[in-house]
Structures are given as structure tokens and as C-alpha cells.
């Protein structure tokens, strides 16, 4: 499933990131890399932005970007 399909409070492991170049670099410098586990903390009213917990940080990203990240729920 995709990161964008998680519900609030769900935990998942990142399987694959369908991005490359600068954006993928940015994700990894934020700690979003394959095999890491994430937790969906909150999303905004219109479901346009989400906050996830990864390692010790909290990161906000748009649903559009979250659709590029494949995860497996745990």
C-alpha cells in the first residue's frame, strides 16, 4: 500500500520510494529511507498534508508526495 493510504495512528515500514535525484536525497536527509518505520501522526483538514513520525523526527509532507512512497503496515 501507499503511505497516503495509512490512517491516523497507523504504523508501517517503508518498502520502496518511487523518487529520484534531489527529492529522494531530501527524503533521506529527513530520515525517510527504505526499511525505516513510520507512523502517521496527523493529517490536515482537506487531506492535503500529513505529519509522520520517523526515527526521532516529525516530518510534514503532502499527500502528493506520500503517494510516491510504498509501505507495509505493521
Amino acid at each position, binding site marked *: 500500500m501507499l503511505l497516503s493510504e495509512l490512517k491516523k495512528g497507523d504504523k508501517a515500514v517503508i518498502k520502496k520510494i518511487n523518487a529520484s535525484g534531489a527529492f529522494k*536525497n531530501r527524503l533521506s536527509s529527513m530520515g525517510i529511507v527504505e526499511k525505516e518505520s513510520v507512523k502517521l501522526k*496527523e493529517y*490536515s483538514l482537506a487531506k492535503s498534508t500529513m*505529519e509522520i513520525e520517523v526515527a526521532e*523526527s516529525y516530518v510534514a*509532507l503532502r499527500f502528493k508526495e506520500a503517494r510516491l512512497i510504498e509501505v507495509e503496515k505493521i
Partner: protein
Amino acid sequence: MQKLTIALAGQPNVGKSSLINAISSSRLKVGNFSGVTVDKTEVAFKWCDEASCSDYEMSIIDLPGAYSLSDYTIEEKVAKKFIQSDEYDLIVNVVDATNLQRNLLFTAELLESGKKVVVALNMMDEADKEGIKIDEKLLSEILGVTCIKTSASEKSGIDELKSAIVAAYKNDGYTSKVKYSDHIEEEIAKIVDFFKEKKYKKDISYRILAIKLLKEDSETYKMMHDEPIWIELLPLIRASLEHIYIHSDSKDIEQIFRDEHFAFAKGAKMEAMEISSMRAKNFTQKIDNILINKFLGIPLFLFFMWGLFQLTFTLGAIPVDMIDEFFTSIGVASKSVFGEGALGSLIGDGIVPGVGAVIMFLPNIIILFIGIALLETTGYMSRVAFLLDGFFHRFGLHGKSFIPLVTGFGCSVPAYMVARTLKNERERLITLFIIGFMSCGARLPVYVLFVGAFFSQENAGSILFLIYIAGAFFGLVAAKVLKMFVFKGENEPFVMEMPKYRLPSLKLVWHTVYSQAKSYLKKAGTFILAASMLVWFASNYPKDEALTNQYQVQIEHAASPEIQIELQNELKKISLENSYLGKTGYVLEPFFRPLGFDWKMSVAIGTGLAAKEVVVSTMGVLYSLGEDVTEEDQGLMEKIKAEIPFASAISFIVFVMIYLPCLAASMVFVKEAGSWKYLWYLFLFTTTTAWIMSFLVYRAVLIL
């Protein structure tokens, strides 16, 4: 005395600025990195190292926060360029001890720069509270560089850090210990061996050089390309890369090294860090449960903003009135000192009111900036972006655009400056371009004058509200248009850290506000000074001595004081008509005629470029009422109602709503946008839009 230049590098929100403050109480020097509007903070101090008994003159340069050495944001570009330069002796890498893994990722990159590094494990007090234990000896061992535990808020570990800096500076046998997977280590070893065999001479270590070559670092390739060794080296690297590709299942060498760094950072954290409890961590979570709640978040934010603007414009209004009175009295006094002649007039009518108008905004700006600095340093700004991004994103803007735009309703000058919080160049430019559409406080007098003249008392409030809403609406549409036709291209992906909530040090907040206020006074002040002199000159010259004398005689012989005043006003009007400004008005008139403006309105639009308040005072002069007019002046309202047709008045309001804010704002705009060409674009963009909109409205009202 030895000189030592230190680059302070680290990810955002790790407390670098607080650490600088803890290291030295000396005054911070604020400048810009060359060519960009990124603040460069520097501090210089003397320090005596007791271990070596020698004095050092240390100078620390605070690099902008960067998540990695990349070109993703301006800040990161600046940090990367500086790290790769030779302008410093040693890097102090500030690391957030409560977020070790992600921070060590950046440390790994710094270690590979080949420079000397000392790691400051900052925020140790917080880490203690969160039950995080770090074995800094072990971590130093793993990284190959000294790690020192520090806490900027408790001022602990500062002297140890200084000693470690000196020790690292004097120690030349430095090697990074970033370890890679075996298959990469093998290839590094092959290249290093080759350098050894060739007895190749180079000022950086073989290992670092080998890694840079394998990472396909373009600078290194350029440098090595001219060396004779290159011919033999090239096939070696090619073979090594092939091996790495086979093992990694990928040919993206950048990604391969990123994954390696990640594994290294994670490994280092696992070994050196231990978490015993998770108590305090939930503080941020608890607050966020309310502040970014789907339903409560936005109302709460709007409430905070409302509070801030209330403070800005009510508390700020008190000193504003005092400053205004002060400058008025100086203006009067200077006229009596320098006489009623040209000099007195230049100072009393030109320089003092012009400069006064700039200083008048200062209290508002300071209050607003304190608020914004608090929003930023506490970490709340990221939540705002999170909440509002959905809406603003549709218009090509960013969640953070909200703050400059709302500030624009007060004054465009601080609004342009606040737009700095937008990190993406394109989004920042779009925001800068539409700030002017948010009607600023200085336009209010114009609206009050026209609405008062043409609408009934009970409708005036609603019309005024409509004007503001229409402006904001035009702004959003304009943003969309700019996004579609000018600042085209894929949207930047939105990935943003939500930092922990932290209480900022007051000293730091004050420092930020102080330097922003100073730069406002300096920039806007110098330009406004020049501009007010120019406007004064254009409205006073050329002088027609004969005509003036003729009127003076008539005035002296006038039958009653009323006729005297009337004659004086007539003289002013004729003088202004004949001045350069008046002549410009006649030149401009054909351009404005399709909008229903006469030459007087055209001149008012022209002088309004200096400041919007000037529109009202210019109209006052032109409609012969003397210079001391206010927007509530019944006489002026009556005159305007009599002389200006309704349709022209509406069209005038629309024009004022949209066109360039004022000279001071334009200058700040240039500074924030980074280039004069943008002012030219802004001028064309706003003037064209204003003209078209006014034209449409004018025609529509005429038909109705």
C-alpha cells in the same frame, strides 16, 4: 596570538545560534553571504587555552542550517559552498543529541569534506530529560573526531568545546572514520594503494581523495583531470565503480553513498546511544494534539494572528503618534531655523516628513517582528505551514505565505521582509509579487476619502471591507496567473521538519529583531531620503518668480482674510501645475484618460508612488485647499464629489488598490527579491493589472 576561523555547521533547529551566544558574549556581526540574502552571523573573541598556554583569536561563522550538503535550498547551497571553500580552518558540527541518527547523517557528509571536525553534542539537557544517554567517548572513537557534550541553555561544556577546537586545530594526523560496506572499502583500498605505489603527492588524505573520486565529485574530477596520474587512475576508478554497481544493484552512485551514510549514522547511534525512558518527549506531542488538530488548529492560529496584529497596530499606534508629532514639530522648527526659503522648504517640507514617514513605521515593525521571531523560534511556524498549505498550494503559494500576506494588510515593508521565511525561491517570489495586493494601512486614507465622498455613511464600512476582500482575491488570482505563466514548472515537493517546541532565548529573539529593524532603517531610510528630496524638488520647481510676486502683491492688498487664503491656494495650485510634477501629470493624462482620470488624479497617482498617504495630500493641494488636509476633511470630500464623476472615482480606487505600494516598500522589495529587474517586473505587472482592472470597472460603472 594565533588566528582561528571556525565554521559552525549543523542541521536546522539544533541550537546553533544559542550555542554561539553561549560561547561568546561578544557582539554578533551580521552580514550577508556574498550575492544572496542569507544572513551571515559572525562572532570574534579572544581565548586563552590553558593546556597550551597560548592565546587564540577565534572567529566563528554561523552557517545557515542544512539537512545535507546539497543545492536543495539557498541555505544549503550557501552552506555547501562555504564548507567546500578554504575560508576557514575547522568545522564545528552542532548536533541535536535528541535526534542523533538524522544529525549524524550530516556529520558523515562533513567528515568526508576532508576538513578537521569537532562535534558538539548539543541540547544535552533535553536529552537527559528524555532519558537519552550518549557515550561520547565511544562516539568519538566511531567517528574519528572529538565529540563534546554541550548545552547552550545551561552553558555547560563550552570550555571543553573550546579546548577540543584548539586540540583538533593543532593535530594534523586526522582521518575520518566513516566506514562503508566491505565491497566499497575494498575499492577505496585499491585506489589508496595505487596512490601509495605512485608516491603521489597531494595535500588531502588518499582515503578522502579516493572516496571523492568514487562519489564522482565533479570538483575533484576537474582537479585531477590535469594530473599526469589521471591516465592510469581512470581505468582503475571505472573498474571500481563497476564492482560497486554489481554489489549495490543500482547505478545511482549518489544514492549508494547516501545509503552507506545512513547505515553508518544508524550504526553509530545504535552503538553510542541508549534510551532509558520516554518521558519528556511527549510534551511536543501534547501541544500538537491541540495546535495541529484538524478542527482546532486553524481557528487557534487565526486567533494568534489576530492577537499579534492587534498588538502591532494598537500598541504600535501609541509611539507612532508620538513620532508623527515629533517630526511635525521638527518640520516646523526647521522652517523657522532655516527660513521660508529653498533650504527651509527642502528640510521642512521634503526631508523631515519623508524620513519621518519611514521612522513612523518602526514601532509596528518591531512589535510584528518580535511576534514573527517567536513564531519561528518556538517551532510554531512549521505547524502553520502544515495547516494552511492545502489552501495556499492551490494558488502556487506555500502554507507559510499566509504570514507575509496578512502582514501586507498592515504595511508592505515588513511583509516583504517576513517573506524571508519562505525557503523556496519561486514560492517566495510569487508571494513577494502579490503582497502589494493586500491593501496596506497607508492606502486607507485614500479609501476613506473616496468612500466618504461617494457613499452614504451606513454603506461606507461594507464598501471598505469589500475593497480589502477584493484586493486579497485579486492577489490570489494573480498568484495563480504568475504560477501558470511566469514562475512555471513543477511544484517543489513539500517535505518539512516539524521541530520540537522550544522556548527561545530572549537575547536571540531581540538580536534578530534588532538586526532586521536596523537594516530597515538603513535601507528604506537612505532611499526615502533621496526620494523625498526628489518629490519635493519636482513639486516646487521650476519657480515662476514673476507670478509669485504678482500674487504676493494681490494677497497683501486683499480685502479680507478669506480672499487672502483663497489667493494663496490659487497660487499654490498654479505653481504646482507649472512644476515638473504638474507637467508630468499632463504628460500622464492621455495614459490615464481611458480610466476616467483627469490630470490632477494622474498627478496624485504619480506622487502616490512615493507613498500612498501622499495621494491624499496631493489631491488636497491640487483641489486648492491648502496643504494640511486629512482624509476626514469635509471640504475636500465635497470638492472631490463635485469635480470627479462617480465612475472615475471607482476606477481610481481600483487603481490605488493594485498598483505599486510605495517607494520604501519598493526598495525593500528589491532587496528581498534579490534583483532590480524584479522591481521592473513588479512595476509592469502591477501597473498593467491596475490599468486593465480600472478600465474594466470604469466601463462597467459607466454602462450601469
